[in-house]
């Protein structure tokens, strides 16, 4: 069994409140995006908007139930550069920007608690 070792903390990504950080720069938009907005076409028509909102809530509820089913299970994250890491899933934040995991097995050691950025993850799998 791998001995837990302290893992190097990589530099944090851009913060929303940093000085001199341009909200219109492509980096900000890429790393600090928020919820996908409702489509403009739906905004004009009340009924279409209602349908879209209904679809959103059904999809979101199902997705949240999937996340709930994943808590405390062993999850395998497939990341960029063919990196695959295994961890115990904790939770995700509201915008699905970060995942909180425990016992992250990395090539250089086991990190007890970690936050994985969703932009670094391509896909993740688990067995229900």
């Amino acid at each position: 069994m791998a001995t837990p070792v302290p893992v190097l903390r990589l530099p944090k990504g851009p913060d929303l409140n940093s000085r001199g950080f341009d909200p219109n720069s492509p980096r900000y938009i890429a790393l600090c995006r928020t919820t996908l907005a409702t489509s403009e076409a739906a905004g004009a028509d009340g009924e279409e908007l209602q349908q879209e909102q209904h679809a959103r809530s059904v999809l979101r509820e199902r997705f949240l139930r999937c996340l709930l089913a994943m808590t405390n299970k062993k999850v395998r994250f497939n990341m960029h550069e063919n990196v695959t890491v295994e961890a115990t899933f904790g939770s995700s934040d509201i915008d699905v920007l970060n995942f909180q995991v425990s016992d992250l097995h990395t090539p250089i050691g086991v990190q007890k608690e970690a936050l994985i950025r969703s932009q670094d993850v391509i896909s993740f799998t688990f067995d229900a």
Partner: protein
Amino acid sequence: MVTGLRSFRKRKLTLTAMQREWRACGPRLWLSHVDKQVKVKTRRQEHRGRLLSVDPVSASLVLVNLVEGGAAVCVVMGHAVEEVELLQEAGGEMTAQLWALFEPSPSSSLDSTQTRRRRAAVCSWLRKNRVPVEEAGEEVRVAGALTIVAPYRPEDCSSSNQVILDRVQRLLRTQQERTEASD
């Protein structure tokens, strides 16, 4: 770009390599793909499975494949999706089976005496913990902000206030543990 969705033939939603296209599709299109077999291509890999849901916030797809002894679930992040291909319409039975894995455990059927007894036990436990409760028929109302329906388990609570919901659920869980411990 997007051809008729009603057809059950192989329908290729060929999007450009720009990940934004899938994300821009919209919840109604995503919902129409749910419960169908799809093939999702990312830059390096291909994933197949039954589409369980698409998160409207991040456009991430949840794919499920039934395997021996359960299901293998794969979530593909929205920003990594390059192409989504609809493979076939799904069978109703398999959907119900898959969904049973994620739905909260169905409420066991209790008869009226057991329900009444359970309700009384829950109310007295909450009152003991100084939580204002009142019974409204078969429901239990807590602090005017939370409702508990039969059979009064933590997952039967509904409220729009996260803090109260969390506290009441914790209390109910503690009560469950105590009952189990004393059995």
